[in-house]
């Protein structure tokens, strides 16, 4: 019984974490940050018993509004696929959270529990596979709407996602060579070691070029400005033109979840995941000598907090980018993907190989 309950609890906790963070990133952080950039105040009216809390209740007000809006399916659309598409794109992003390690292990009684839902030996490829299946949501939404603008948006989306998926995968090859594993948990474990005795062995220090390529490719995968050609947010002409109500909301949530998932991936792969610099299982070991021992439960809490902090930082960073830069033109987008990012990632692979063989 307990063998069945533990994974269930882990799945529920991971999903609640993802959805709450998504709600806040896609709604509150997005609106407040853009407001500050525009020198406005931003959403601050939602209140419970007169308590406004700088608009922190706003995401719930927006979610309730979205749920009760009319769900309209155009008469000319392909009904079944039109309804299926938002669920597909939501599902394939939400399922990737299973592969992300939130922390090391905790010990309850005699039982050791991993703070990760799915720990197969190819978790990194699992995430890539699920993200590549997410394309079907975009294509089907565009095609099943039976509307030319939607179809064009869907085709732009598919072309963009396929192009950047190549760079996305290739940018990680150097990383896989250094921490020889496809398992996210052991990649994070390897990042706990030290370089020259004082720099944490994080991906960003070992694979700076890989990180830059990954950053651009990941931003393109989230389909937001400056890469928002599939949806054309300022014109609202894109693959979800024909959607309304909760189905549109699912696309919106998918966008938010992609930000969160990309942030967790950047954290896990390039910024040490749940590792805190110089913190080992029994406490801090400072590089200038001296140790500071901590109880194991404090260490676990610090690690989970560090993971969350890094993820929050990257969510904030992506929202900042989205409100700072204008959109790429379509040919610029393709040039950036095929003529710059892919050659750079190949250079990175060869360079990593040469340095490793020295």
């Amino acid at each position, binding site marked *: 019984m307990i063998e069945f309950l533990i994974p269930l609890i882990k799945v529920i906790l991971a999903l609640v974490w993802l959805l709450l963070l998504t709600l806040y990133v896609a709604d509150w952080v997005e609106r407040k940050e853009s407001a500050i950039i525009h020198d406005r105040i931003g959403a601050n009216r939602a209140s419970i018993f007169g308590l406004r809390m700088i608009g922190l209740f706003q995401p719930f007000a927006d979610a309730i509004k979205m749920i009760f809006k009319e769900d309209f399916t155009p008469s000319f659309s392909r009904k079944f696929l039109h309804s299926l598409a938002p669920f597909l794109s939501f599902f394939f992003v939400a399922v990737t959270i299973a592969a992300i390690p939130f922390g090391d292990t905790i010990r309850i009684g005699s039982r050791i529990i991993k703070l990760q839902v799915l720990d197969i*030996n190819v978790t990194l490829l699992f995430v890539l596979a699920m993200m590549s299946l997410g394309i079907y949501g975009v294509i089907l939404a565009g095609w099943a709407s039976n509307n030319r603008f939607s179809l064009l948006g869907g085709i732009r989306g598919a072309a963009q996602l396929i192009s950047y*998926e190549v760079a996305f995968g290739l940018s990680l090859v150097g990383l896989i060579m250094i921490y020889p594993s496809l398992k996210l948990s052991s990649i994070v474990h390897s990042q706990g070691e030290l370089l020259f005795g004082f720099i944490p062995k994080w991906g960003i220090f070992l694979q700076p070029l890989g990180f830059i390529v990954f950053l651009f490719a990941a931003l393109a995968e989230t389909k937001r400005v400056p890469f928002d050609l599939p949806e054309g947010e300022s014109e609202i002409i894109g693959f979800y033109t024909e959607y309304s109500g909760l189905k549109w909301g699912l696309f919106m949530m998918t966008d938010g979840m992609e930000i969160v998932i990309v942030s967790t991936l950047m954290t896990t792969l390039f910024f040490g995941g749940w590792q805190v610099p110089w913190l080992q299982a029994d406490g801090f070991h400072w590089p200038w000598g001296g140790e500071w021992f901590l109880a194991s439960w404090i260490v676990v809490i610090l690690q989970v907090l560090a993971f969350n902090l890094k993820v929050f930082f990257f969510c904030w960073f992506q929202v900042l980018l989205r409100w700072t830069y204008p959109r790429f033109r379509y040919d610029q987008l393709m040039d950036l993907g095929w003529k710059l990012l892919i050659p750079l990632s190949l250079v990175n692979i060869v360079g990593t190989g040469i340095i490793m063989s020295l």
Partner: protein
Amino acid sequence: MAHFLFFLLAIVCVGAVVGMIFSRNQAYNALLLVLAFAALGGIFGLLSAPFIAVVQIIIYAGAIMVLFIFVIMMINLREGIPPEKKKWTIYLSAVLAFILIVELILAARGSFQALTGPGGEEIASPKALGKLLFTEYLYPFEITSILIIAALVGAIILVKKKEEE
């Protein structure tokens, strides 16, 4: 649990392929094929070969079929047009199908007795699989890659616009 999942995936896989054969709409054909590939990936996962499962999904469902669907939606074929029929193609396809079945049975004959369980460490870990590919199966591997590159170059030459004379 494993048995239940296996039969579920097997039914989905076979059902999707049968549906694909009988459906006349090209877009639905491609989507059903994606479903079959996804179910096949799940079966590989059940056979404790997660690497092959994930690669199956990335390459077939995530890359190749996306391009198929992309093209089908771009050229927007009308639905329900029966494929062109000629008398001799029916006979030829029957003969070819028979030859294919015989060939498949001959190829797989030896492995029917060996079906005792999942493949074990050699299939499960990417490291062992990679080692096998680059030592024992090096020549087939390289020949396959040359074939694929030749096909790619051929496709590019075919679609390339002729220079003005």
